[in-house]
């Protein structure tokens, strides 16, 4: 099936999310859509999938113009979509999820799930998915949930599959498997639209690459084009993809974690017996696939988790059992993973957000009253120092772009002397330009002698920043490896292999290749 988008424009009020975009997906082709977060890739795909009406433009399937009033129409036309956030009902079984909206029924509208199960097994066998139709979706690993999404599209006879940032939630190993599945689908004559901002993956699977920036197509590229060329096309200026940083000069070990265990309300050990140290002047990166205990680890350090056992000491002071305020006072700076929910109060002004951790200290407060002049002065300084792009210091923080919001959070946390700095997903959803800035700022804090912990699910970021890397898998520490370790080793560890085995295996593989 040949799919064409001609002059698609989508406006939300005054915001132009897509500006007359043209795109042709030929049959049996993997067509990548490369662009930064917020470039308009997902909007375009939602238009294609019938979730949004285009403001202008036309969609053609096999040279015939079509209009999609809803996802149902798009599916009927042979378009299937795997959303970035899976569209699966967590409490349903695989079969129920696949059947939904496309139910095989017996007399009287009663479900015939048996037929759906048979179809799932067929597809699962054909592509080697290994999916049990009767498993409950919320119990399945993310990689398998994604296959369920693909099955949903295939059951509806999709000829074009849209994969929206499919690798964001996968381990490197699962990513490789997904790329294999994509090759198989392509061999079966299906077309694939692959949306990503990860250059490596895009280069590996694409037949054609279309680069989108600020809602416009800025060019097409060949998969063999060098990475730097693709990156500068994506960002709109030349970017340095590597960070200049001096080797770390670790000092005294001031931060110690011993036998730390965090239990969830249901008794599950989400952090299980962690012990590690961080020295002054070094960055320890905590790597792992999302949901393997990283969030709970950082929250346990900050005193935000109940049911914590073990010991966390900073400069000899025990932190477990103390209040969040005490921990902040002890000199811990924290950038939470979801800035819009936990890092900022969206409806508060930028100036107010900049003093959220010091609102009751001089010079911002005297007795019961706040002092607006000091708050404003502080805001002006920080906005200049961090190059926060905002209309004014009194603008609501929620109106800022992701990168600028993150600068506000960082500016606030760095605004007092720190004894420990923790950042969770410091550059998630942040544009490439801001990433450079934020990374340099974190390295500067390290060079100033602060122990730094970075939690990130992006391997690129981990490898770029880390002096040492700790890998978490199901709440347990798979080991701590040097910052210069290979991706393969990290990939194995993220899938649950202890560090020594992973190092040995990666070594063997390399030996074999040579």
């Amino acid at each position, binding site marked *: 099936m040949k799919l064409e988008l001609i002059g698609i424009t989508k406006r939300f009020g005054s915001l132009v999310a897509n500006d007359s975009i043209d795109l042709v997906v030929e049959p049996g082709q993997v067509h990548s859509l490369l662009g930064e977060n917020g470039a308009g890739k997902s909007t375009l795909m939602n238009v294609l999938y019938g979730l949004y009406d285009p403001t202008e433009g036309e969609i053609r399937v096999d040279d015939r113009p079509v209009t999609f009033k809803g*996802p149902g129409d798009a599916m009927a036309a042979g378009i299937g979509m795997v959303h970035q956030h899976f569209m699966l009902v967590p409490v349903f079984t695989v079969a129920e*999820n696949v059947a*939904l*909206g496309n139910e095989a029924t017996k007399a009287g509208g*009663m479900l015939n799930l048996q037929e759906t199960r048979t179809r799932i097994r067929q597809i699962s066998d054909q592509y080697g998915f290994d999916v049990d139709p009767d498993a409950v979706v919320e119990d399945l690993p993310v990689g398998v949930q994604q296959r369920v999404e693909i099955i949903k599209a295939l059951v509806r006879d999709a000829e074009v599959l849209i994969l929206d940032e499919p690798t964001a939630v996968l381990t490197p190993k699962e990513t490789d498997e997904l790329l294999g599945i994509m090759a198989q689908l392509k061999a079966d004559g299906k077309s694939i639209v692959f949306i990503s901002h990860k250059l490596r993956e895009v280069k590996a699977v694409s037949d054609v690459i279309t680069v989108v920036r600020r809602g416009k197509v800025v060019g097409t590229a060949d998969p063999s084009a060098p990475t730097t060329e693709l990156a500068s096309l994506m960002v709109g200026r030349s970017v340095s993809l590597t960070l200049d940083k001096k080797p770390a000069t670790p000092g005294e070990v001031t931060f110690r974690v011993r036998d730390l265990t965090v239990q969830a309300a249901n008794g599950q050990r989400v952090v299980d017996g962690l012990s590690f140290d961080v020295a002054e002047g070094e960055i320890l990166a905590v790597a792992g696939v999302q949901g393997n205990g990283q969030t709970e680890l950082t929250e346990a350090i900050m005193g935000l988790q109940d049911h914590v056992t073990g010991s966390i000491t900073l400069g000899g002071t025990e932190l477990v059992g103390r209040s969040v305020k005490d921990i902040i006072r002890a000199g811990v700076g924290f950038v939470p993973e979801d800035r819009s929910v936990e890092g900022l109060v969206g409806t508060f002004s930028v100036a107010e957000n900049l003093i959220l951790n010091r609102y009751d200290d001089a010079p911002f407060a005297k007795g019961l009253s706040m002092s607006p002049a000091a708050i404003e002065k502080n805001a002006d300084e920080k906005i200049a120092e961090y190059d926060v792009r905002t209309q004014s210091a009194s603008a609501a923080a929620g109106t800022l772009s992701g990168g600028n919001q993150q600068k506000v959070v960082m500016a606030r946390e760095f605004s007092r002397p720190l004894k420990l700095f923790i950042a969770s997903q410091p550059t998630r959803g942040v544009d490439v330009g801001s990433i450079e800035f934020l990374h340099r700022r974190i390295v500067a804090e390290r060079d100033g002698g602060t122990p730094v912990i970075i939690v990130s699910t992006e391997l690129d970021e981990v490898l770029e920043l880390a002096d040492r890397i700790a890998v978490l898998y*199901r709440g347990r520490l798979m080991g701590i490896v040097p910052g210069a370790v290979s991706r393969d080793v990290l990939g194995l560890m993220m899938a649950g292999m202890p560090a020594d085995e992973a190092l040995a295996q990666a070594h063997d593989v390399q030996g074999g290749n040579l």
Partner: protein
Amino acid sequence: MSTATTARDQSSPVRGTGDAGVRSWKNPIILSVVALFALLVFALGAPGNDVTFRLSEDNDPIVLPSIVVSGPVIGWIAALAMLALAVLAILRTRSGQKTPTWVLAVFAVLFLVAFLTWVVGSARTPNVALYGLLAGSVTLAVPLIFGSLSGVLCERSGVVNIAIEGQLLFGAFAAAVAASLSGSAFVGLLAAAVAGVLVSLVLAVFSIRYVVNQVIVGVVLNVLVSGLTGFLFSAVLSEDSERWNSPPRLPVIEIPLLADIPVIGPILFQQTIVGYLMYVAVAVVYVALYHSRWGLRTRAVGEHPKAADTLGVNVNRMRFVNVLLAGVVAGIGGSFFTLVAVSGFGRDMTAGQGYIALAALIFGRWNPIGAFFAALLFGFATNLSNVLSLLGTPVPDQFLRMLPYVVTVFAVAGLVGRSRAPGASGIPYIKG
């Protein structure tokens, strides 16, 4: 399968067993306190006489012998058994295990038996008709069950229905007026369903179309219906109650032979049409919810509406239809008050039953069968308080009348474990 998933599979059983878990002392503490209470009151304070539970009347076709038990014997056995269970729960919690459900269930049954024996034994006439107690419970549970089913239909599709009370009350009012004017109880039944739908329509339009907070709309509707029916009652119905407010009652339909079975015969096979409709409604809603296309889509829009939308299901239409259906169910439930229980409408005669139905829905974990049994429990508590006040127990009447509400509070406070609401219940769906 990937290394990731196999590694997970291998490690999960290790994590599952022997894990200390987050210890909760809630169950052992509650069990211990209740067991000590039982020891003090039911065992030490047991009435010295025998207690008689009648299973049938002398003129029934099949006569069963009455159960006669000794007050102190039952009191002591039950109290000691309850203490033993409490100790078991303490030991298990100490070793980091959960209190098994069967312990809670057996404990509850023991408490009930001991309480009944004690309270009936202490009464002036230590003799109670057990079959009547049970049959009365079912009868009183009828409107609760209809109300809960209405809640199931709404909440499973993602709309919180606080307006059950209003639906019941308006159904009761419409049934009384329509049946009085037409002289036919069946016309009343139909009118009740229509009235329920009218309340639902307002709920649906405001909460789905205009995205108003569902709890607020529900509460406002209850107040509105209460005010409206109260006004019409005093302005119209009381003026000429012969014409407006003297509905014929629905006839009791006895199923031959089956109705003669002792104890369960009167419960299952001596009902009005509303009673039989209740059993049908529970079964139909259950089967449809879990085994039909409509049910799959209903549950999907209640759990993850966006997922349903991306598969071409019209979320808000599903919800609209479900809320209207819920109105039919609750309206029929309302007719029970004026066509079965008493003949005629009274101001605010539903007396908070809609809220109890809401509690039954939660206690029953948003499942029609669960809601059915939860409503039966509340019906039993209500009926027990009625029967006991007639028997003349030492417990003051006011306390007995609190019984259903005390049971509700304990039930909803999660005595029986945490229940999980539909994921999107109460959250309006806005496209895009």
